C-alpha cells in the first residue's frame, strides 16, 4: 500500500527547509522500501510548526513538526513497521485537524489550502472546486453580481469597499468593449501573507474567482499583478493557469460556454505604492507607478482606459464559495457590516504565528493571547500593529476591539489586509513612528508634496525627538505634519502614515519623552 506523505511547497515552509526535508523523506522511504506518495501541498497555516510533515493513516492525517531532516528521516523509516497514528516522537502532534489553532477556524476561502495538491486540477475538483463557476454559468451575469452584493463581501485589500457594487459599475458599462479583471496580488503590507499562501496553496480558487468575475462583468482578459518578492507563487499560478487552459476552463470558450476568459501573471518590481490600485494599473501599462487622481474610477477608465474590476486576491478567492454555497451562507458569518470570514495573519513576535481564518467579530485579545499564545520571546506584549505599515499601533487596553472594519475605525485604527504584528516590551514606539515616516519616504510615488516632503521631514523630526532635542516643539511639528499628510495627500500612503505615528505617540507617550498616559481605570 502506498502511504501519502505531505510536505508543503509554501514559501514559509520552504524558507524553513521544506525542500531539503522533502528530499530526506524520499531518501528515507526508498531506504525503508516504503511505497510513498510525497505530496507538496500548501501550508495548513500553522507556521510556527513549519516545516510541517503530515502522514495519512486510514484517511486521517497526522502532523509532525517543526521537522528537521533527521527527524523526518527517522519518522519515515519507522513507518515501515508502525502506522502514523501509533508513532511516538517528540514532534508528533496527533491528527492535524485536531490541533486547536486549526480546529477553531472557519475555513471558507482556505477550505482546501494545505489539503490538496495545489496544482492538481483533479484534486481541486474533487474538493468542490469549479462548482462556483458551474453555478455562475447557469445564471445571468447580473445575477452573479447580485449574489456577490448580497453576500456582503467587502474588498479584502484594505479599503473594504463592497465588491458587488464595484462589479455592478463595470457590468453596467456598455458591452462590446474590452473590459478587464485585475487581481491585486501586490501584498506589500508587513505582517501579511494570506494572498501568498492561497496563491501557492490553492491557486485554482483565484483562477476560478477571476473567471467568475470576468463572466459577471463581461471581461475577457484578466491580469494578476504579483509582487516580485513572491517567486513561489508565480510558479504555482502559472502552473494552474496552464492546466486550466488545457482543460478548457480558460480560453475562448470557458467550460464550453459562450464566454471567453484568459489570464496572465505580471510581476511587479519592488514598489510598495504599486499596491495602490491606480498605481498598479500604471505599472501594468508599463509606466512609473504614479497614483492617478480619481475620478475617473478604474471601473469606468481602468487598465488602458477600459472598464476594469480591480480586486484583492482574497476578495476574488472568496467568490467561488459565495457562488457555490449561496450569498446567504457567506453573509451568515460575521458581525455588523463586516460579513463572512477574514483570513487573519498572526505575525511578528508571536508564539503561534500563522493564518487564522475566522468570522469577523473575534476580539484582538483572543487572537493575540489565546490563539497566538502571546509573544515568541515570552515577554509581555507591548503593542500590536494591525493593517500593515499604514495601520495603527494598539496597546493592550484596546484588546477588546472586535475584528470588524467599523470597530477598528472607531478606535482610529484599521484592519486593512488583516495582518497582526505583535511587539514585546523591548519595542520602542518612537522608533516605530520614525520607521513609519521612513517607509513612506522610501516608497512615496512622489506625486504630491505632503507625502513626498512631509515623510522626509517627519523622519528628521523623529530623529531629533529620539535624540531628546526640544521634544515638545518637535512633537508639535510631528503632529502638524500628520495633519497635513492626512488631509493633503492624494492616496493612503501619505494619508494613512499618520495612523502608526499618532497611535504610537498617543498610546505610548513615554517613549517620546512625554509623561506616561494615565489610563482611566475602566480601560485596563
Amino acid at each position, binding site marked *: 500500500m502506498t502511504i501519502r506523505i505531505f510536505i508543503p511547497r509554501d*514559501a*514559509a515552509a*520552504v*524558507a*524553513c527547509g521544506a525542500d531539503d526535508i522533502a528530499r530526506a523523506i524520499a531518501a528515507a522511504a526508498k531506504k525503508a522500501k516504503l511505497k510513498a506518495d510525497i505530496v507538496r501541498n500548501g501550508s495548513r497555516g500553522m*507556521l*510556527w510548526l*513549519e516545516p510541517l510533515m503530515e502522514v495519512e493513516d486510514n484517511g486521517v492525517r497526522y502532523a509532525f513538526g517543526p521537522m528537521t531532516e533527521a527527524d523526518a528521516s527517522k519518522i519515515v523509516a519507522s513507518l515501515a513497521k508502525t502506522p502514523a497514528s501509533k508513532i511516538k516522537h517528540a514532534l508528533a502532534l496527533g491528527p492535524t485537524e485536531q490541533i486547536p489553532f486549526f480546529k477553531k477556524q472557519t475555513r471558507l476561502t482556505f477550505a482546501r489550502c494545505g489539503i490538496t495538491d495545489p496544482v492538481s486540477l483533479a484534486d481541486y475538483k474533487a474538493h468542490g472546486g469549479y462548482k462556483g463557476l458551474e453555478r455562475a454559468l447557469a445564471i445571468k451575469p447580473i445575477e452573479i453580481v447580485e449574489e456577490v452584493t448580497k453576500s456582503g463581501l467587502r474588498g479584502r485589500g484594505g479599503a473594504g469597499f463592497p465588491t458587488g457594487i464595484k462589479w455592478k459599475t463595470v457590468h453596467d458599462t456598455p458591452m462590446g468593449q474590452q473590459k478587464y479583471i485585475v487581481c491585486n496580488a501586490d*501584498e*506589500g*503590507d*508587513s*505582517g*501579511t*501573507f494570506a*494572498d*501568498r499562501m492561497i496563491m501557492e496553496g490553492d491557486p485554482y480558487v483565484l483562477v476560478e474567482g477571476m473567471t467568475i468575475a470576468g463572466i459577471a462583468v463581461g471581461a475577457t482578459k484578466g491580469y494578476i499583478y504579483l509582487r*516580485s*518578492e*513572491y*517567486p*513561489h507563487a508565480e510558479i504555482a499560478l502559472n502552473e494552474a493557469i496552464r492546466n486550466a487552459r488545457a482543460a478548457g476552463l480558460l480560453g475562448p470558450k470557458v467550460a464550453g460556454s459562450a464566454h471567453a476568459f484568459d489570464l*496572465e501573471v*505580471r*510581476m*511587479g*518590481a*519592488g*514598489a*510598495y505604492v504599486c499596491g495602490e490600485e491606480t498605481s498598479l494599473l500604471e*505599472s*501594468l*501599462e*508599463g*509606466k*512609473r*507607478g504614479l497614483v492617478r487622481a480619481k475620478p475617473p474610477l478604474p471601473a469606468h477608465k481602468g487598465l*488602458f482606459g477600459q472598464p476594469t474590476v480591480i480586486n484583492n486576491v482574497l476578495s476574488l478567492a472568496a467568490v467561488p464559495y459565495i457562488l457555490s454555497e449561496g450569498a446567504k451562507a457567506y453573509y451568515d458569518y460575521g458581525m455588523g457590516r463586516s460579513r463572512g470570514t477574514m483570513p487573519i*495573519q*498572526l*505575525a*511578528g*513576535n*508571536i508564539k503561534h*504565528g*500563522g493564518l487564522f481564518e475566522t468570522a469577523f467579530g473575534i476580539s484582538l485579545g483572543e487572537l493575540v493571547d489565546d490563539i497566538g499564545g502571546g509573544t*515568541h520571546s515570552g515577554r509581555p506584549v507591548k503593542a500590536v*500593529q494591525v493593517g500593515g*505599515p499604514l495601520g495603527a499601533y494598539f496597546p493592550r487596553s484596546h484588546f477588546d476591539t472586535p475584528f470588524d472594519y467599523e470597530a477598528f475605525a472607531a478606535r482610529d485604527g484599521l484592519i486593512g489586509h488583516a*495582518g497582526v*504584528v*505583535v*511587539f*514585546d516590551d523591548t*519595542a520602542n514606539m518612537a522608533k*516605530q513612528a520614525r*520607521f513609519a515616516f521612513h*517607509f513612506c519616504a*522610501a*516608497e512615496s510615488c512622489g506625486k504630491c508634496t505632503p507625502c513626498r516632503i512631509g515623510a522626509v521631514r517627519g523622519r528628521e523630526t523623529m530623529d531629533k525627538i529620539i535624540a531628546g532635542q526640544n521634544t515638545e516643539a518637535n512633537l508639535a511639528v510631528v503632529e502638524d505634519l500628520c495633519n497635513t499628510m492626512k488631509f493633503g495627500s492624494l492616496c493612503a500612503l501619505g494619508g494613512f502614515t499618520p495612523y502608526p505615528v499618532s497611535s504610537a505617540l498617543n498610546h505610548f507617550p513615554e517613549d517620546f519623552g512625554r509623561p506616561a498616559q494615565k489610563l482611566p481605570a475602566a480601560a485596563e
Partner: protein
Amino acid sequence: MTAFEPWSEERTSSIVAAHTHLEGPLMPILHAIQEAFGFVPEAAIPVIARDLNLSRAEVHGVVTFYHDFRREPAGRKIIKVCRAEACQSMGCESLVKHAEDRLGIECGGTTADGRVTFETIYCLGLCATAPSAMVDGKIIGRLDTAKLDKILSETGA
C-alpha cells in the same frame, strides 16, 4: 549565483521583440533584460525606447522608479534582509548591524571587491517565521546570527 551575459544591442533588441505581442510590455522587458545582464545597462535604454517607440525619458523614468531594477551590476552574491515591521519585532536590526560590521559596508552597498551586495527588502511574506532574508533569490526564514554568519562565510567575508 548565475552567470550573466555581456550586454549587446542585438540581444536587447531580441528581448524586446520577444515581448512586443504583450499589452504593456515594458515591465516584462525590463525584468527579462535584468535577468539576462544582471542589471539594466544605460545603453539598453535608447534601444528599448527605439524599439517600443517611446522616448528615452519615459523608459528611464520607469527604470528608476522601481527598486528592483539595478542600474549597475550587483555583487556576486546578493543578500537582502527584510527590515519591515514584523521582522523588526523579531530583531532584524541587530542582524543588519552584524552583517554591516562583518562586511564593512552599510546596508544598501556592495563590497569593494564585488563579492557581496547587501540590501534592505520590505517584507517577503514570511512574517510569521521572521526575521527573513533572500539570498540570490532563495528565501530564508527564522534568520539568526548563526545562519547569517554561515551565509556571510560563504561569500568569503
